[in-house]
């Protein structure tokens, strides 16, 4: 019977496990993937290598050379303190991304297990956490952050904790939505029967499934975290003088903008806008993987 010798290449192609990257390219078109990933990589590399690059000292004030328009010597001009805006924009990548990433990771590390537990245990605990996350989702983010920072003191750590605080509900909700349908799946029942402790089940069996959605949500949360941190430092909270950070640079330049000195505010804003744009694009690309899997 000829039937069961199917041509080798067709079956392989249909069901073989291609690398995540391959599937991402296949789902979204090559140039879109390459462009976004490349640009984001450029920004991260610039951020990491900032001190080694041939840039001017980002925190060197020069009162005599303050508010100079963009020129060959100062690519993005200078701000009111006379510091080089271009160098500060590049160095700000460190401050913004580091703060954003740490707050998102903390948020995820707390939110994901919480979501997994509440999804798996169900009952009053699940109800309670969902209700609490819904309430906190509604909190006015910037206002509440201001209140907390006013209460707990305006330090960098507090800023990271506040922004992390806002990420917890995002991740707990997401993980819970992945975990709930898994509760009845056979291998989870099997593990239960084999008297694997509840925590073991949740962390070894269930949580790994939620890794891809969590992983794909990370860049988007980073995007929101960067915007939030910039917003807070625009209000003078968090980053101290003279650390280069986009939000505080925009605020420093804001007053001059009306009098025609646009560059101290516009360039950090552009950098912030580009980073958030790229992060949300990358998150979409990763999300397209998740959709295909479930």
């Amino acid at each position, binding site marked *: 019977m000829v039937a069961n010798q199917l041509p080798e290449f067709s079956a392989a192609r249909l069901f073989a496990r291609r690398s995540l990257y391959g599937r991402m390219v296949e789902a979204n078109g090559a140039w879109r993937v390459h462009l976004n990933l490349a640009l984001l990589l450029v920004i991260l590399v610039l951020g990491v290598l900032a001190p080694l690059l041939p840039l001017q000292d980002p*925190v*060197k*004030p*020069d*009162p*005599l050379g*303050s*508010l100079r328009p963009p020129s060959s010597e100062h690519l993005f001009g200078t701000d*009111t*303190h*006379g510091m080089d805006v271009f160098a500060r924009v590049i160095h700000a990548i460190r401050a913004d991304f580091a703060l954003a990433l740490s707050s998102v990771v903390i948020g995820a590390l707390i939110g994901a297990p919480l979501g997994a537990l509440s999804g798996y245990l169900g009952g009053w605990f699940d109800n309670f956490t969902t209700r609490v996350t819904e309430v906190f989702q509604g909190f006015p983010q910037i206002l509440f952050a201001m209140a907390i920072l006013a209460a707990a003191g305006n330090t960098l750590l507090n800023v990271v904790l506040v922004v992390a605080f806002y990420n917890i509900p995002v991740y707990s909700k997401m993980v819970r939505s992945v975990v709930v349908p898994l509760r009845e799946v056979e291998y989870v029942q099997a593990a239960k029967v084999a008297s694997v402790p509840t925590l073991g089940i949740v962390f070894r069996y269930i949580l790994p499934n939620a890794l891809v959605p969590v992983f794909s949500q990370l860049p988007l949360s980073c995007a929101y975290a960067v915007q939030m941190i910039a917003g807070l430092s625009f209000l*003078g909270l968090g980053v*101290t*003088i*003279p650390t280069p950070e986009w939000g505080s640079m925009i605020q420093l330049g*804001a*007053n*001059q903008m*009306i*009098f*025609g000195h646009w560059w101290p505010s516009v360039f950090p804003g552009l950098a912030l806008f580009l980073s958030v744009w790229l992060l949300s694009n990358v998150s979409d690309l990763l999300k397209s993987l998740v959709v295909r899997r479930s």
Partner: protein
Amino acid sequence: MNGRSLLLLGGLILVVAFVALKRTRISETQDRETDVLVIAIASDIETLDPPFSRFQRSNETNLNVFDQFFRYASRDTGKGYRVADVGTIEGAAIESWDWLDGQRRLALKIRRDTVFAKTGRTVTADDFACWFERAYGTDSGTLWNVETAKITKAEKTGDYEMTLHFSDPSPWFFSLFRDQSQAPIDHVAAAQHVESDDEWATRWLSKNDVGSGEFYVISWEPGVKMVLKANSKYWAGRAFFDEVELRIVPNSTARALLLREGEVDIATDLSTDELQALRGAPDVKVLSIPTRNQMILGFNTNTPPLDNVKVRQALSYAVPYELIHEGIFKGRGLVSAGPIPVQGRFHDSSLWPYAFDLEKARALLEEAGYPEGFELTLDIAQGQPLTEQVAVVLQDTFSQIAVKLRINPQSSAIFAEQLGTLEHQAWMRDLLWYVDDPGYTGELFFKTGAVSNWMGYSNLELDEVIRQLSVMVDPAGKARLAETYQKLIITDAPVLFLAELPFEIAMREEIDGYVQLPDNLLWYYPLYRKKDR
């Protein structure tokens, strides 16, 4: 498809709206018959009860709403503004006076037929007597003036006479009693609002002015605006403007824009960048007047390492005085040279040894035992662009002698409170010396335990010099004492004298008659609007 047509329609409406809005250049302001002086101010008035006002904004309003005991005469500088002549005193609420038995007693004649604007009662000696009682009763700012002027007793010696008794001759009596808080209020009206827990009616008086000044308050929308009306029965004649509108615009840039757009006549508390931008604008003028306002960085002399005098001297050498003067203040104002302002009497520049010399600074630090430097937190008040710019420059130069300066902007309320409780390791703010007299400054700032000694600084020898200065009337003696006063403070260096700031105010071209007072308060009375434009 209805979606597409909807979108095109929406786009069309937007374009039409934009063009319509652009075309209708309806004047932004509604013209009114009465001539109103509009001033953009930074924050609301704290209180209308002068003894309890801590902030410049309330002092200014009280200056214009109450009639002070005395005032300075003013002289024209020929540069478009007049300046208070600190040497000549004129009577205001007090008509005339004369010293008795060697300046131990002062007989005051109260100006007759002057009236409290809101209540219509005539001002009598009783109001003055009650003013003194209230000063003692409330233990507030006015009492400090009375005690510093060494007044022991104030007695009413007639319907319109008062006599003040002094423990010693007081060289600063007039400069103290021209202060905005030294002004009679209608004690009968105040008495009606006394309450069980508020015997001096402070709560009522903070919201209601019962003075006999050039203006009185007719409307007050907290956080939005306050309107003053000219007192037509003022003894020196009614002010030029019918009304003065104080419009609260917290954002300094917004104030500058309001002025440039012609929506306000005067804009106060602007940053150097905004003033720089306004200098080029049409129909706007910026007055820049040298004053005795110094930018000062104070150390808490009780906490190491700042308790070590060598460390303080080292930091005095690490200040780029010229760069601050030229770069940040664009050459306006003066380079500071010691505790007495450069233009003040008895100032002696030869005594000032410090200049920007990092080598000397490093050497002194080594001597002091801090070769590898130390950490220092500098607290400043938020929303002060000038202070922040100076702090950033210092941060850079101090880092070159391994002193790591952390700048900590605080809210103005917390900054002020922590000054009082000596909680700052180092602080920086501009300080205005009202009275051009080293004794007064010493009494207020450098004497051990002085009210504004925010450095916790104490030098007994200096205390003795200040005590002598406070009773010395003879100029030659004062000069000798002032010299030792400057030497002691300069060598001890409890504070850094960073720069002498000009007082800068921006107003419309047609506003004239500005008089610069020593306390930089804006006096509305002499201002008028030139009509020929």
